[in-house]
């Protein structure tokens, strides 16, 4: 299968989870604290922290400690759309190549 460089791999791993995509979508509207997100997604603080850490590791989210509150904002602009699209594109391309292989096998049998 396709291997990604670590940075790209992190991005796609981060985007592979629906909760994390939800968090990105939520932060796309406005920044939020970890506890806001925990309420929004009906999760424990620990659970949300884990997701945010993964997103932060992929550079999709940045966090800043403001007093006792950790505020999360969207990381590099538009990366989430683009990364998701490129990932989708790659999967489409692989599926297309699978079909091309099947087609060539099928037509080979028909021709012989």
């Amino acid at each position, binding site marked *: 299968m*396709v291997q990604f460089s670590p940075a790209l791999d992190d991005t796609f791993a981060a985007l592979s989870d629906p909760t994390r995509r939800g968090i990105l979508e939520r932060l796309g509207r406005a920044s939020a604290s970890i506890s806001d997100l925990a309420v929004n997604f009906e999760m424990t603080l620990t659970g949300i922290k884990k997701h945010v850490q993964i997103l932060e590791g992929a550079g999709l989210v940045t966090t800043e400690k403001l007093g006792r509150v950790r505020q999360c904002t969207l990381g*590099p602009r538009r990366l989430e759309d*683009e990364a998701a699209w490129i990932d989708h594109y790659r999967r489409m*391309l692989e599926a297309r*190549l699978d*079909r091309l*292989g099947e087609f060539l096998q099928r*037509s080979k049998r028909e021709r012989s």
Partner: protein
Amino acid sequence: MRAKVSAAGEREIRIERIFDAPRERVWQAMTDPALVAQWWGRGNRLVIERMEVQRGGHWRFVEHSAHGVHGFEGRYREVSPPERLVQTFEWDGMPGHVAVETMTLEDLGDGRTKLTTTSLFHTAEERDGMLKSGMEEGVNQSYAALDRLLAKLD
């Protein structure tokens, strides 16, 4: 098989596949509309609206699936049978996100063919940078023209 990040602001996806078919046959499957219609849609119905396989020619394919209708299009940049095809690729759902796809077919000499697909994406970061520098240049040129005009009026 690998995918990698190249220069800043660019992303490259590279996939290699070996097909048990001669190179001419693979080339034909990729460039003959009647054959493309049989695999490109990944099992979905495919309508080939345009397919002008020549340098500068336009292609537009529409996939009809249970999830909706998706249009894809681009232009052929290089058509060198039976070894190299370069085209741009754009999906209606992400207008402006153009990838350049380069497909290279290698005859393995045993009736098999290696197809290498390289897709280069220019990311927003780089496009924004280009746009900004282009605008700055344009603004500077306008100012220079204005300066010349003002100098004449003096």
